């Protein structure tokens, strides 16, 4: 059998000041590169590892460190900007935007949905029934209550 879940890291990036943002690119992933990077920057913002007003690395610096194309990091920043997560000031760099609670809330929900879809897919491929899956979730909630 071939291994279907081997994740091979091709590179990772740690934000220099504070060493808080970490980006890991999986070589065996369905997600396009820019999507992987974008999602992880968003995650870092949600988890407040990247704080409001904090400066992001330049597109060239990030591209060099992650060993991806500068066109990819540019796309990531452009999209994060249009989604309101970061602000780019000409000649100064890109910064984490001030928090927009509504946007944040919605994105957090979206994150959960994405993860649940993964869980659902795995459950289906392993022939785990809807009821079983629900009871697993119930168990998690019960454990938390205790």
């Amino acid at each position, binding site marked *: 059998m071939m291994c279907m879940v081997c994740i091979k890291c091709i590179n990772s990036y740690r934000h220099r000041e504070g060493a808080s943002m970490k980006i890991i690119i999986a070589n065996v992933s369905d997600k*396009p590169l820019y999507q992987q990077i974008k999602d992880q920057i968003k995650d870092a913002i949600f988890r407040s590892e990247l704080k409001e007003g904090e400066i992001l690395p330049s597109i*060239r610096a990030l591209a060099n460190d992650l060993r991806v194309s500068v066109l990819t990091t540019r796309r990531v920043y452009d999209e994060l900007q249009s989604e309101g997560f970061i602000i780019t000031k000409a000649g100064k760099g890109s910064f984490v935007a001030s928090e927009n609670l509504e946007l944040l809330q919605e994105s957090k929900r979206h994150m959960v949905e994405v993860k649940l879809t993964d869980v659902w897919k795995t459950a289906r491929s392993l022939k785990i029934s809807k009821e079983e899956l629900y009871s697993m979730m119930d168990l998690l909630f019960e454990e938390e209550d205790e």
Partner: protein
Amino acid sequence: MNNILEVNGLKKDFGSFCLDNVSFSLQEGCITGFIGINGAGKTTTIKSILGLVLKDAGSIKLFGKEISENEREMKNRIGVVLDEGYFYEDMTMMEMKRIIAASYSNWDESVFKGYISRFKLILNQKISTLSKGMRMKYSIALALSHHADLLIMDEPTSGLDPLVRNELMDILLEFMRGKGKSVFFSTHITSDLDKVADVLLLIDEGKIVFSEEKDMILDTHGLVKGDRALLNEQTRKLFLSLNETEYSFEGVTNKKTAVRQQMSGVLIERPTIEDIMLTYVGGNEDVI
């Protein structure tokens, strides 16, 4: 983003080989890898850009201006590293440097000295006694010491060991941190480009096959491995290239979703630039 170099309808006929209507452009701020097998036309294209080969037809614009009409100004803004050294073998590196430095109006001796000490080169050594790696480092030092905006290199890594190649790639990335810098380099050692390229330009038999963002090409293509029993008339059509052994197969596809739907249990990996290059050149005979 601006185009730093625009080549349009470039033609050169050598009889046995010709560049056939070569058109492409290079974006500012990018490292463009020029790939293709030996004899595909990489060196001829680069030499035509530099005016070392007289083109039969076509236009070559550098920084927005026709290069043949502004040659002196243009060449001050490009740094060049060619495959064969083109140095006088009997001179020392110091003597050769004097000749080259004199031809650039913005030569910066301190930058040059910096590279020389970094590369641990000794300037009174004769060029004929240099190893391949030292020669390349010397060429790089010469090419980067007049504040060029565009670095053009023809096969700079061929014949170099992995350590020196890595060092060169780091120098390129360092160079790219400067504002408005671009690199155009040809190679058949595609693993160098896996690390540093932003854009890929593939040439085969004198024709441009594609010019694409590297990450896009690697994202949209997949290297598929699996049981040979999954191949049938229909699923074969999903592949651009296919290598079969007795039990398994390996192929490159640009229809990943269809493969996933129609062929369960296959492994889809991210291809390397080499996989892509071999897929698109020379009618992809079995190469592995």
